[in-house]
């Protein structure tokens, strides 16, 4: 399988990465080189094989349903580029 220019633009949008028109051909070439490389997996017989979900056989750990952290709003916003009080600021979303 290979991707065309329109698909490259669609993937970029899904990934939320701005891509200019003149970057598209280059990216298309690189993505197709990667897709060519992984194409060899289609020759493996995976009939009846379970997909891996955990590399070490382990039970999903569950924690107690208690509050054991929190009250650190100052720390949470400490690295934010734009804040007001304990809120993150973003451009207006709803008109």
């Amino acid at each position, binding site marked *: 399988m290979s991707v065309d220019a329109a698909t490259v633009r669609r993937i970029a*949008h899904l*990934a*939320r990465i*701005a891509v200019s028109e003149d970057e598209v051909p280059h990216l298309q070439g690189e993505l197709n080189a990667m897709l060519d490389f992984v194409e060899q997996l289609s020759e493996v017989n995976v009939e009846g094989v379970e997909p891996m979900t955990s590399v070490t056989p382990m039970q999903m750990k569950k924690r107690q349903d208690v509050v054991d952290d929190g009250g650190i709003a100052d720390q949470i916003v400490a690295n934010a580029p734009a804040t007001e009080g304990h809120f993150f600021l973003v*451009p207006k979303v709803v008109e």
Partner: protein
Amino acid sequence: MTDLTSLMLAEARKGLAAKTFTSLELTDAHLSAIEKARMLNAFVMETPEQARSMAREADARIARGDGGPLAGIPLGIKDLFATKGVRTTACSKILGNFVPTYESTVTSQLWRDGAVMLGKLNNDEFAMGSANETSCFGPVGNPWRREGSNTTLVPGGSSGGSASAVAALLCMGATATDTGGSIRQPAAFTATVGIKPTYGRCSRWGIVAFASSLDQAGPIARSVRDAAMLLRSMAGHDPKDTTSVDIAVPDYEAAIGKSVKGMKIGIPKEYRLDGMPAEIEKLWSAGADWLKAAGAELVEVSLPHTKYALPAYYIVAPAEASSNLARYDGVRYGLREQAKNVTELYENTRARGFGAEVRRRVMIGTYVLSAGYYDAYYLRAQKVRTLIKKDFEDCFARGVNAILTPATPSAAFGIGEKGGADPVEMYLNDIFTVTVNMAGLPGIAVPAGMDAQGLPLGLQLIGRPFEEETLFSLGEVIEQAAGRFTPARWW
């Protein structure tokens, strides 16, 4: 007094305990070595004041008789580990001047045991790379050069800063992480020892995530014994990482010097690649001979799905990365590009903040997870991963204790020499190491010899899950036989 930077960690520990020198002296010696080696670009942030204050505290602890196992030992920390109050960037522009308000579990355990932080080490951006060329702080120089040449070579990646700093004697050991070979490949390129432990052995909490089902932390060190000492402090159960295992951490150092007599060592025929350089082949059989001379039994084994590990990795790792890196949105931390609306804010921030390799991997990961392609790519890759793991399980079930392979398909190469036209050329560096991450197994790279141009080459040992001790015992046999390799100082 001999140059304190040339000591092994184990020797430094003895000297500190005997009060031959102080941690402050040992730390100052390394800080001055770092200053003189800035052209290697191994450190992206030096923390001399913090280092001296930690050293003084370690000296006080040693004087009181309660110095921990690493009391007073100066270390470098890969910039992927969150360090409280010290800028942590994963060497990406998108994290900007991110200063964590918390400490990663692995580093906090090193400080608990008395270690001293010298600073933060360079790496490939978000650990995506095999040459340390994708860092936003620029490439790292390998202390090793080809005989009679002034060309600067890459130290490997992604833990290139860690490997370069340890090889150049700028720190006594370093933390590193390994998703497809990022500890073992740079260790092999710099004649240092690097171990990626079993998945779940070290907590991933507070380490910038790349591909969560593959990422593991481990040390890069000057010797097998030093690596064992560091791993003992780094490993252990952490309730904050649900994939960290609740198994007691053994005294890895006790495995050094233990007899390997009767151990069964597998030589996988699929690792004998067409066109493999003769010197790698030679080194591999030398390694087998050394283990045999130590009493191990060599057997040929087959890992039939080996060739599919790298392509499967280039689906699984980018897929997980595209999900993990979704958090870099210009809202909560790091870089923010101005925009008219929130979608443009995300798109512009991520376009400007991520480097080319990261953008490429996030996009391929987004593609393989997108509607209509998930089954053909991601699901198939996860099934292939099951088969890769089963190859190893079958081999271990036949009584094999460990598997011996080359660590890399070549020695270090020049900056800008590989991957310019086709990204896959660079990816092939990890062909011998990536299988181990796909199966979650422990793997160690040990320096084993030199190529014709005077560059170091390493061998890799792959072990059963949670049997790192076996790797330390076998690794030390190789180390003893091969000897130690130190680069001539030119920086």
